């Protein structure tokens, strides 16, 4: 069992049209690196030159914003669900 990553449409275009990807690793950073290797076009949309998330993209690990859990260093386990959401407005 792997970790699933839900992509928004704007990013799925760079991942062969796949909206859900699967990867593995001990941290979210490992998972993102694996996806980045598989889909090189997607890589620069997921992390900046320093390897960190962009300010306008929010990563959720299950229901939690990863910024509350160490960012890309957040530990992950099989069955976890990662959702990538571009930042959106107030309401």
């Amino acid at each position, binding site marked *: 069992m792997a970790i699933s990553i839900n992509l928004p449409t704007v990013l799925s275009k760079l991942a062969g049209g796949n909206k859900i990807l699967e990867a593995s690793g001990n941290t979210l950073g490992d998972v993102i690196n694996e996806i980045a290797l598989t889909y090189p076009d997607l890589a620069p949309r997921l992390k900046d030159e320093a390897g960190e998330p962009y*300010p306008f993209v929010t990563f959720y690990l299950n229901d939690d914003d990863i910024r509350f859990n160490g960012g890309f260093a957040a530990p992950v386990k099989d069955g976890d669900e990662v959702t990538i959401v571009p930042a959106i407005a107030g309401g």
Partner: protein
Amino acid sequence: MSTTAETAVAATEFKGTLTPNPLICRLCKTPAEAAPVAICEHCLGPLDPAPNTDRILPSRQEIESREKSIWRYIEWLPFEGTPTLSLDTGFTPLVEAPRLAKLLGVAKCWVKNDSVSHPTLSFKDRVVATAINAAHAFGLDTIGCASTGNLANSVAAHAARAGMKAWIFIPDDLEQGKIVGTQVYSPNLVRIKGTYDDVNRLCAQVADYFGWGIVNVNLRGYYGEGSKTLAFEIAEQLGWRQPTAVVAPMAGGSLVTKLRKGFREFTEAGLISGDAPRIYGAQAAGCSPIVNMVQQDLQQVVPVHPNTIAKSIAIGNPADGIFAKKAIVESGGYGAAVSEVAIVEGIKTLAKEVGIFTETAGGVTVAAALQLAQEGRFKADDEIVLCITGNGLKTLEAVTDPSLSPLKDAPVIAPRLREVRSLVESMQGA
């Protein structure tokens, strides 16, 4: 020959044609076609409607001769053509508040009173008016939103009037006034177990999956521009000039950026002159990620878990936080975060000194202004506008909560003159 009733009905039906402006990324400046899309494909930054650079701008007199709604400023809104829906939103009162000015230690103070906005008593009617026109122009038959309450009310009402379907997502713990004030229009209202930030995340996925026009997600570019009309109206109502300072509440942070943009656009058009106002942002201490950025000079949003009665502005992960901080700092303004008791006192102060009953976000704004005054942020010759963005009847819980600073119970007496006399005497003696 049409009857009066037929004419009134016709006024609510689709007429006119409107073309939304194309889009451009705020960060990398890559252009994009006009569409219900809010994210740049290249850098994932926010897409804004491209400015109307080749448009012939109206004079002050031309604007003054138009209907009193946000559409009198159509040249600065992100459309070509004639609006089709929600034609009568905007042009709320600008109320002079001399006693509040005295409390703040400034020369003049006005309240921009969007607590009486048509039709749903909050400034969100402005942004929904522009978003629903974009949705209609794109041929969408369903609109929706993620909301902390006021936007839910507004989307539900505007959609009902236009005959469009609405899907509205809110946190499950909102005030009753916000829930009932949405349900009454018969939208599809869904309460989500979680905070606004959870609802927002879900709605990003909903917009992506269903293709609906979620006003603050994929219609966000067209939605946000409606906020500028608050600045346009303030300038016009002051006699075509700018205040020296504006205090506004912050949730996602968009409003303060659009206020600054609005004053700038009117200055560039030659309609007003002089220095742009200093912009002051107000948040509750229980949810103040943008004020934290301003006060600590943070370069990124550090999200927080909201814990405040000011639910309408309880956004822990503000999408426009970086831009809001920039607008505030560049304008020479500052930020203030206020306590729960101060919020309730702010509501009561505005009611007592100005005769306006605002909701918790307005209480935050008033309390923040008073706090900024205490900190010496204002000058004696300042002319300040407070943006009051919502109505107190929607958050009665705030002023009746016994743990905060509740209103006193009114005396209950028998229908006898002697009892009134006794009451008056006791109060005179007090």
